[in-house]
């Protein structure tokens, strides 16, 4: 079986599992919403202020929500040692990782798609005319978050205190992604929106570097 086909099957399995209960999605969206609301108490959500703080707030909310959502990605395979079964299947290690990454990408994208309009309403940010470009920035940023996050979720799943460990491993690594994503988003929220291509290229580079690294190192993550 090709890696792509195996990953697609695993993606379908992850989606089926999640959409039966939708626990992860609900709690992630709710969590991001709480962060967004809490921030409105920390500063005045006028249009001018939102332009200054909005992009940072949005990405911090996604980062927190993402680390929450990625946590069970590998940990929930442990209770019945289903990862052992996946390992025995005649598919490459990267297919397992890729399936998880795709699933996490779908979950986080859905959460973002729900959060962004709410944010726009609460913080007086107009999305008219920038929605398409914002989607590009969100996609590139989310890919980077999900790639590193899935790998670290595989690492932290074996550790003690794994719920606490994942954000500690993930956030320092994501520092450059956060800067680039916030700057690219800020250029779209400006009075005259323009897509900052340098930051976009940086986000793309970040995604490629870590996707390649996880492709090279995936067998060490999946092994017994």
């Amino acid at each position: 079986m090709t890696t792509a086909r195996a990953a697609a099957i695993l993606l379908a399995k992850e989606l089926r599992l999640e959409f039966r209960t939708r626990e992860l999605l609900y709690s992630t969206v709710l969590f991001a919403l709480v962060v967004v609301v809490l921030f409105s108490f920390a500063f005045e959500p006028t249009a001018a202020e939102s332009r200054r703080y909005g992009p940072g707030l949005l990405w911090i909310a996604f980062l927190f929500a993402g680390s929450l959502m990625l946590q069970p990605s590998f940990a929930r395979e442990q209770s019945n040692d289903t990862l052992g079964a996946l390992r025995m299947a005649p598919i490459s290690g990267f297919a397992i990782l890729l399936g998880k990454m795709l699933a996490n990408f779908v979950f986080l994208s859905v959460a973002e798609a729900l959060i962004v309009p709410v944010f726009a309403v609460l913080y007086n940010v107009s999305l008219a005319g920038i929605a398409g470009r914002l989607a590009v920035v969100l996609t590139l940023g989310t890919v980077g978050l999900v790639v590193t996050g899935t790998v670290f979720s595989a690492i932290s799943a074996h550790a003690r205190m794994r719920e606490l460990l994942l954000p500690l491993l993930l956030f320092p690594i994501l520092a450059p992604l956060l800067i680039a994503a916030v700057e690219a988003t800020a250029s779209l929220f400006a009075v005259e929106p323009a897509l900052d291509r340098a930051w976009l290229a940086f986000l793309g580079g970040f995604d490629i570097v870590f996707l390649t690294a996880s492709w090279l190192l995936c067998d060490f993550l999946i092994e017994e």
Partner: protein
Amino acid sequence: MKSRMIATLFVAGLVFFAGYAALFIAPDERTMHAVQRIFYFHVAAWMASFTAFFVVFVANVAYLGTRRIEWDFLGVSAAEVGVACCTIGLITGPLWARPVWGIWWTWDARLTTTFVLWLLYISYLLLRGLLDDVSRRATLSAVFGVFAFLDVPLVYLSNRLWRTQHPQPVFFGGNGSGVDPTMSRVLLICAMALMGVMILALVDRYRLERLRYEAAELREAVETRRADRESIASRGAR
């Protein structure tokens, strides 16, 4: 044992000489005066810590390639020593910045990168502490180490694009850069001294890690034997 003593004495002598050279031999800086003398230890600590972090990366890659546990010993030893040197740099930096820039800290590219680097290797050590199985700890922390190392240039680049205040590199920095030849010689001595301290600590830490590993193996063997003996004894009693 004897060679180790000689090496320790040599490095100790070097440290004393470096301290003397930084305080008395190096010329006074025109605008910063005595404060600037912290430079010799600040920069030297960075050199030692970056070398140590590079050793961590080499050890991580080598472990993943060969699966020899010795590389894991080297990785953890270098990471601990590197974090210690990095902490020296992070403490001497603000001490120098306060009188010269008027602020303790600024979110400039190099400062931020180093701070993130420090956080990354602390989480590397934290991760190791939370993984109990020896070979799994070695493998997973090596993977994390490679990711952390790949992240460093990206952190630097992103902050470089973003904002910067730290002085441009004074060595190999092109026209208008460079320092007094005496200063660079003193820096060389200080760098050698701190590098020596770093290597000594690294070698000691490596030895400690190996002893710990051997002790754990022996303990396990004793446990197995005791369990065997008990099962034999209980069978005999029956």
